[in-house]
């Protein structure tokens, strides 16, 4: 990809031996090497008609009355972890940000910042993951950019994705949560803490062996199915950095209602709990990459829960609590030993470079 230019689809034979070759500064120069990289890698895997236009901007048709637009950057360390890689995160992260706003994700842009000397074959694995995820989520990667920086000036590869989605007017208030009221139920589509702990365990410096798999997943289908059966979904947010605890705290901050959560209803896998115990982390604040928190009107909560459970990403979904009249502006946890405590927003950085 050349600077802010739509990727071409011309596939040419290349001298690059993908097993051994490294990314060179020239691959970001906009010249011959750049074109080679675009042709053999990006355009080949991301291939679609809009990308084929080869113009400076992707030309896309307008659909619907409201548009959602988001961007996110990915700097996870290590790049590959059980359950995914930086490419999966870059697609899922942006797709989910659009979906939880009530939008149907349609188009993505992809920007790569690559460190000189990075392995071509690893880059290809990342690109293939992105192409596969985009395809299965039904989104099209329509434009992109590549920069290569001197060795040591970035850590292997950083990715930025932006995304555009369309949304129905009736869903425009979901992202603000303005319709939340006491009695509404809080649902999450499964276990918490898997992504953060999988990345943590994959970091070599810890020398820990576990079988924790990241929950990284595109949730747009699950969310679309849910929106189809209920007009009573008041709020959605993906519980990424800062974890479930931070989302709950964000919902109540400055509001005239509170939240009560039952610790007994939270699903935390044994291996995640174990590693959290060992390292002193609270799973409530550990990052997820495939979890959505929904606030749903009481009367629809069970139906919505059943629908979510039909999705492969919602098998362990549960109603974890409700919006309350008491504890205004605060989220409270009824602990599993019968005590109570506040759920505060995550302070500082629990785990750097988790996504």
């Amino acid at each position, binding site marked *: 990809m050349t600077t802010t230019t739509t990727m071409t689809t011309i596939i040419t034979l290349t001298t690059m031996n993908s097993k051994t070759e490294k990314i060179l500064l020239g691959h970001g120069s906009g010249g011959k090497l750049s074109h080679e990289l675009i042709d053999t890698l990006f355009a080949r895997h991301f291939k679609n008609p809009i990308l084929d236009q080869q113009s400076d901007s992707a030309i896309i048709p307008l659909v619907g009355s409201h548009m959602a637009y988001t961007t996110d950057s990915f700097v996870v360390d290590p790049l590959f972890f059980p359950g995914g890689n930086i490419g999966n995160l870059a697609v899922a992260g942006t797709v989910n940000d659009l979906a939880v706003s009530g939008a149907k994700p349609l188009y993505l842009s992809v920007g790569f910042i690559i460190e000189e000397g990075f392995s071509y074959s690893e880059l290809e694995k990342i690109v293939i993951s992105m192409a596969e995820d985009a395809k299965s989520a039904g989104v099209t990667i329509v434009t992109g950019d590549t920069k290569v920086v001197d060795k040591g000036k970035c850590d292997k590869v950083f990715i930025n994705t932006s995304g555009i989605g369309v949304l129905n007017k009736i869903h425009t208030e979901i992202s603000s949560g303005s319709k939340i009221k006491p009695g509404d139920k809080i649902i999450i589509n499964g276990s918490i803490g898997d992504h953060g702990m999988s990345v943590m365990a994959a970091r070599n410096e810890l020398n820990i062996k576990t079988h924790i798999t990241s929950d990284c997943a595109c949730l747009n289908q699950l969310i679309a199915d849910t929106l189809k059966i209920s007009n009573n979904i008041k709020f959605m947010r993906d519980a990424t950095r800062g974890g479930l605890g931070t989302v709950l705290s964000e919902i109540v901050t400055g509001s005239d209602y509170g939240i009560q959560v039952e610790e007994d209803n939270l699903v935390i896998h044994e291996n995640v709990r174990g590693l959290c115990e060992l390292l002193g982390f609270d799973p409530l604040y550990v990052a997820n990459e495939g979890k959505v928190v929904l606030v749903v009107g009481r009367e629809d909560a069970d139906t919505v829960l059943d629908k979510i459970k039909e999705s492969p990403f919602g098998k362990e979904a549960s109603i974890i609590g409700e919006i309350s009249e008491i504890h205004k502006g*605060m989220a409270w946890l*009824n602990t599993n030993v*019968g*005590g*109570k405590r506040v759920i505060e927003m995550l*302070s500082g950085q629990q785990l750097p470079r988790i996504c």
Partner: protein
Amino acid sequence: MKYIDEYRNKGMVQYYAGQIKNISTKHIRLMEVCGGHTMSIQKFGLPYLLPETIELVSGPGCPVCVTSREYIDRAVAYSRRDDVIITTYGDLIRVPGSTSTLEKEKASGADIRIVYSILDAMLIAKKNRRKKVVFLGIGFETTAPSSAAGIIKAQTAALNNFLVYSAHKVMPPAMETLIDEGVNIDGYIGPGHVSTITGQGIYMNIPKKYNMGVVISGFEPVDLMQSIYMLVQQIEDNDPKVEIQYTRVVKPEGNIIAQQMLDEVFEYRDDWWRGLGILKNSGLKINKKYESYDAEKMIEVEVEPTIEPKGCICGLILKGEKKPKDCGLFGSTCTPSDPVGACMVSSEGACQAYYLYNR
């Protein structure tokens, strides 16, 4: 999780809550000495399970909290040297010094690395022979033996660029000083990890001299509720003694090998504690035999004059005289993301525990 869930059993916790309610008649204040206990009590919401007769107060057992600003200032000064790599547990990195923190120095380019064990620090020393690798040795009898073991191992392996900057302290002088100063408490929930090393002998003076009980407790909710029950019973029966609730870990004699390592490497010195001042023989200094591993001895630096923060009452909180909510800075000027005092920084600090779980 085996060996954890048993001690988080709701039925058992409720059972002890009921028992405590049944026998408690006197209004009492119990001090959990250890910061780990404070965190656990707040995290599991235990105060809501106790009758109004029982008040829990946090004590001085958070190593980061009682450490002086001068210690951080000196660590900052070490970190500014090009030939030094600082290795530290994560808690210390955000503790405010007089004008800087290790986190700020790291952002300015100092080589400061967070480790989970002294062994990681030694590995860094092995890989960076041309640098002096300083491990910030902080903690009570719990962590001091691992520093001692590291130093002994470094000597055996001729790892001569590895140094320890010791802030290690011992617990008994602080526990006695609090009573001497007239702090209003009726019993101690004794530190579980410290006692694993030391055994119960170090507390024997407390019932004898001060007529006050100590129950050495584990860290899970059932442990803590049972320990509170045992203390309440002692107080109701007027029968103060040292008891071990945490029998699955703590032996009466402690860990003899760890004690021998401490004796081998360290000697006592008078040391400064936040809130308590200088306490006799309360600090651990690396002795002459191992002084070539002592950062204080081996690296000369100029340390800036210490400035204490205005309005911070960490000292009074560490003595159990005030609660975090009594502090004018709590939750406004002083939060975990922008802490003024060490008690808000440390994951064992009383202010952080209250901020996170009980505001």
